[in-house]
């Protein structure tokens, strides 16, 4: 009880620490120096219509590489934590027929949608992460519909490894052929607003999408496997 009391007091005090952050900081009225530069030159420099994508994939590309790495670590970590010495016998359960046929109809559509999202990441909202999640959700649907179905471990591994490796290679290409690591301009910028534009951004975002998708599926798959 005394701990609850202390918790209450100190949480309230912490709120008081935060208070000036709300009262003293006025709402933003114009862009800061960094984002003003992005707004002015970002489109011309990198050729992507979605400025957030420019920031995510190129200007702050190292963050994004790190972010992909974080997901990668999580997948590895979960696989690592949930390792087991013995494999328990499987329990079988049938999924309903409706769910099954519904899934087989929906699955290609959802995957296609996911691919669309990350391929258009430089033009419209969304990108590798969002597309990756969509693809992952398709696979989850599949896993739910057929409890015994699991994505092929090997394919996942290859997909994850290769997309990651190619992502890094894109970075090196930027370093060698253009201005720096993860610079997208070693490919032609193309015509602004078109799908084949913005240099390597669509390529990188697609790789990110594949990798994120594979990793998320990996996470869920590993958790799901524990099931048995």
């Amino acid at each position, binding site marked *: 009880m005394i701990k609850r009391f202390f918790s209450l007091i100190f949480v309230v005090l912490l709120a008081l620490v935060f208070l000036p952050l709300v009262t003293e900081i006025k709402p933003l009225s114009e862009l800061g120096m960094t984002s003003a530069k992005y707004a002015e030159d970002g489109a011309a420099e990198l050729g992507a219509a979605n400025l957030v994508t420019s920031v995510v994939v190129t200007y702050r590309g*190292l963050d994004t590489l790190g*972010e992909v790495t974080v997901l990668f670590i999580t997948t590895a970590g979960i696989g690592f934590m949930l390792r087991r010495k013995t494999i328990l016998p499987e329990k079988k359960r049938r999924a309903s027929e409706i769910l099954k046929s519904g899934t087989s109809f929906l699955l290609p559509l959802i995957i296609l949608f996911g691919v669309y999202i990350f391929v258009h990441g430089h033009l419209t909202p969304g990108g590798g992460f969002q597309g990756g999640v969509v693809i992952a959700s398709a696979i989850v649907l599949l896993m739910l519909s057929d409890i015994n179905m699991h994505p092929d471990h090997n394919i996942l591994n290859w997909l994850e490894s290769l997309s*990651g490796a190619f992502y890094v290679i894109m970075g090196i290409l930027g370093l060698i052929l253009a201005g720096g690591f993860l610079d997208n301009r070693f490919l032609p910028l193309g015509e602004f607003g078109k799908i084949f534009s913005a240099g390597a951004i669509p390529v990188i975002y697609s790789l990110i999408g594949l990798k994120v998708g594979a990793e998320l599926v990996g996470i869920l798959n590993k958790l799901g496997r524990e099931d048995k």
Partner: protein
Amino acid sequence: MVNPIYIFVIALFSAFLLPVIDKLGRKVTLGVFYLSLTAIFAVTLLWFRAFGEGALIENIFTAGSLPPFSINLRMGTIEAFIMLFVNFGALLGAIYLYGKLLENKVYALMLFLTLIMGVNGLIMTRDIFNIFVFLEITSISLYALIGIKQDARSLGAGFKYIIAGGLASAFLLLGIIYVYRITGNLNLDLIISENPLLLSKGGLIALFLVVVAFLIELKPWPANGWALDVYEAAEPGISAMVASLVAAGMVFVFYKFIPLLPHSWHGMLILFGMLTFVFSNLTGLKQKNARRLLGYSSIAQMGLLMAVLLLVRRFNDAMDIRYALSDIAAALFVNHFLAKAGLFWLSGIINKEKARDWSFNKQPVLVLLFAVFIFALVGLPPFPGFWAKWTLITKLAQYNMIGWIVPIIIGSLLEAAYLLRWFGATIKREQTEQVIIPRYKILPPLLAAIVLVIIFPSFAPYMTGMKTMFFFPLLAAAVLWLLDVMPERMRGMVMILILAAFGWYIYPLAKGIVLIFEFMFIAGGIVISLASLNSARPKQGYWEFLVMLIMSLALIPLAKSSMEFFLAWEFMTVSSWLLILRGKNGEKPALTYIMFSLGAALLILTAFALSFAETGELGLVLLSNLNIYAIPVYILLALGFLVKAAAMGVHIWLPGAYSEAEDEVTPIFAGMMSKISLWGFILLFGYMGNKVLGIFELPVLLGWIGVFTAFFGALMAVFQEDIKYLLAYSSMSQLGYMILSVSLLSHLGWTTALYMSVTHLFFKGMLFLAVAGIVSRIGTTKMYEMGGLIKKMPASFISVLIAIIAVSGVPPLSGFGGKWLLYTALIEKGWYLQAGLSFFAGAIAFLYLFRLIHTIFLGQLKARFREVKEASLWYIVPQFIFVGAIMAISMFPNLILKPIMAAVETQFPSHVNWDGYTVITALGYWNGNAVMMITMGVFMVPLIWLLVRVNMVQKVEQFNIVYAAERPDRPETTHFAYNFFAHYQKAIGFLVKEQITNFWNSVSEWFHSLSATFRHIYTGNGQTYALHIIIYIVVLYSLLGVK
């Protein structure tokens, strides 16, 4: 130069591809894994070398834009330096974990690589949000790796760790976004240059949140329970990574943010760092679990490092980038990095939970490694920690931040207490079970230890002007260690040869008083060492420490700078401590000894630091120029030397140390090492003369301490039953006389002190050697178990007899001259009270000296000693060398008095005249020759009378009482000499009750119970730990005074 981006590329590339490569077999995967780590290390090594050759800081831009529009990295000297160690540690850590990595899934390899990448990123990146990302990469890899050991304990610990880490990240993220909001960018350098923007209230809070997040990552006291749990429960290979690698990354990030901190925060943050240092060490005092103990030590070191990083900002000159290696922080960092990782690795190899259960199973390599790491952490020379401590304290004094020295000293002593206690206990443990240890596990700690040793030349900048010979003790010890294959006696001979050569080498450097000391140390050392040749049994470490001790003793008077003095002093302390530890029951006394000695050393260090602060130079001569700090320096030095002299009040280390050290070593302690404190006083008075504090003249105070030491030492000697204890207290008493006479600050006083010092070496050497010889035959030091040995050991008897005549100060032997000089000197100065008391003490001395003859040699021989033979010649020969010396100087006092007086004359004008063999003072004269003749004549008459009547003596059975139908439960009570002075005890026993021992025991207990109290905050509950963090944040916020 290789772009450091490739460090990420290598790590990520292999991490991404490892699952695929693993299909080719685990060995291949591991090959790629180790290759990647090596490549990363190679990259940093290249950079480090480039900076060594004068390369400039390199900024690495990404994404083809300049910062702040893109993320940039920086590779500079400090970055390269930290990364060099991080990547080296990573490689070693990976080697250590080889077994685990082989048996676990490939994920472990991937996680390890990302962990390393994360830490490298943390160090290089200059973008604050990127710091967050790399922090997460590091933390999440770590969270997963903590799960390498799967049991409820380590999982629970890992979960608590995640909670804490998650909270820290949350605050960091909030702080970062507000920093961005206020400054409009995320580039650290730009933010630093636009610092004023952050000085608004909102800005300061944002800054506070960022900083506090990294503080939490540094595990500040008391909000650090989660980290301790992980140190304790995780796989030691992982704990090693947390304590070294990850900590390095966090510290460096904190360092990067320091330029942003408002100046007004520094003091409070330093205080919090120091609190962590002191209280973590305090809490460690009660800890029994080895790894948790290491955890406390790690956290303490991080606290110190953090405080130092902030303090160093104030030393404008110390930040010269070219000397990054020799910087305090760098030295502390390297020291802690390697030693702590090494100890965690060792803890995995030993694999015992309780620190007390550690044993090395007869693996000398492990003992050596353990010693290196522990000594490095305690800050003993020649390890980096020593230089760090030295420089830190001198710099603090120089920059007028003397107050900070206090927590550093207290914390260091506490840390030394538990680490050295642990070391002592482990070394002394019975080593039984033989465990096979995989070679690869020994390699990492071995390499870490080697680096700790070979990094030594990097500290050359501190050693400018320092003579090489001050490292001879180490060198000699190393040589003897390498000669380990030789027969034991041969090694001993080599040691004596080394000593002789060293004596020959330093002879031209020594003049006057110094020469007298050198004579005592080198000649005395050689003679006494002869006794150690008596046995051919292998003695591990014996000759090494002995030569180190004697050589460092000899070096101390030769020191010209405080650095030289302190270095030799530390070598002396360590080697003597290890010699005590070698004794059969040496564990406890050695601990007491080293604690007092380290305390004394730190007092002396502080004094030197103050002197440096005032004069700006290290020369000891400059002590005489002191003005502002004269009084504190005087007092600190005097206290340090008093502890070393075992003066009244701080003497409790002495009896245990003397009696538990091996019998052949005790004469060196008593005859030689105790004199070093006398040298200290000569140094002190010689340079600083008389100082007055308030109404007290300090030398007068010291004189009183001396006379009381003489008095109580004698008194306590009276009531001892153990012969080595008796002699130990006797030495204390004698040293009291020397302090008294040196405090006189007169020609006669100093002459007395030096004269006594030399003769004391002779007769204490004899006595302890005689005792060593006797003990070697009868195997006990208890006097009530002896008796009647006169017939069995006549040679020993003669030497003891001569010695006690000499000690007691009756004519005709040399002790008389000492007493005579003393009283003359005291009266000349007008110290009548002191003269009276020392006369009284001299009388008491008879009581205990009488027992040496009476109890050991007279009375009746015990049955079990019927077959005892005379002690071996190895003991007898050195004794008789001393006998000859005593005879010579008793007969011809001017042999020794003349050089002493001539030497002292450089300090004080002499009022003493010489006439042939006669010393003439204002109060009378002393002709040693005549005194000798007369006394001999007086002595011979009764002796001959007794010899004639010898057949009339009636013999009494010693153990009559045993046959009186009683079976005594304490056999010693049947001995006629047991508790011999019981009647005196009734009268004056209250004076010798162990009040002082009790006092120091209660000091120790007080610290331990304080430790027990404080560690109760670590309840083991993850939520409580989270609450600690919140409280820490709120409290720190209110104390920093963010306005």
